[in-house]
């Protein structure tokens, strides 16, 4: 990088990290929430049966 590696690569590294997190974190949160709500709905179903 012609003597500028210390500036160019951190810039690209930070960008890759932040952009990945912006997608991965909400996807993970979505999966957690789905599981949580599934559990609640199933418990409610069970209490209705008994």
């Amino acid at each position, binding site marked *: *990088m*012609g*003597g*500028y590696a210390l*500036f*160019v690569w*951190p*810039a*690209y590294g*930070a*960008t890759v990290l*932040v*952009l990945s*997190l*912006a*997608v991965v974190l*909400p*996807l993970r*949160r*979505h999966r957690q*929430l*789905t599981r949580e*709500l*599934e559990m609640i*709905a*199933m418990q*409610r*179903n069970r209490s209705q049966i008994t």
Partner: protein
Amino acid sequence: MTDPTGKRPRSIWTRRFHQLGSPPFFYNLVGKILPWVGTLCALCFAVGLYSGLILAPTDYQQGESYRIIYIHVPAAWMSMFVYLILAISGGIGLIWRMKLAQAIARASAPIGAAYTFLALLTGSLWGKPMWGTWWIWDARLTSELVLLFLYLGYMALQSAIDDRRTAARAGAVLALVGVVNLPIIHFSVEWWSTLHQGPTVTKFDKPSIATSMLIPLLLMAIAFQLHYLVALFARVRTEILDSERRSAWVTKMLVPS
């Protein structure tokens, strides 16, 4: 002509629009197209990075350091574009109480904040070797920092107010007032003297950048736009699921009995 219910008959387009605005429909639609947009986005990034870091020539003045442009400029453009979306969808949510618009505004804020942060960070990493300083309090840099604070203020407001509808309304007002900052950012390099260079692409003349450098920049700009869609879709689905957790359609979808 009126139908028995006394409502005006609606055209197919009005119905389509209303369908798109219904949370369950949007939730399912977005879930289906998310993987495709994600693939397209990854492809765009691959081609954009390859052409920007390997194919594009070295700058005769700035050497290799100019390659930061391929992330700095798209991030800065997106920081302003997402703010515009935040203000418009916030405004729609404010006027018509449209739940989907409120969810889009709420989901956009952290993504816009991320782009703003990246624009400031990469700009700083570019400024040090070229200007000899990480930061100066000039109009361009300061107004972009104000944009970051607007995003953070919006997010703080959302988490401080428990009632979603009140939070959406308060946030929309803040977002709309903050729009005044957008032209300030854009024209700051022309209105005030600054270290920051003037617009090279977004002006009415021919862009003052070589085509071999412009093409990777535009590819990266498209990749960033697609990234916004992917991040927004992922976030807005979580938003919808969370706010509609007590609705019948959510229960039916999760536990089909």
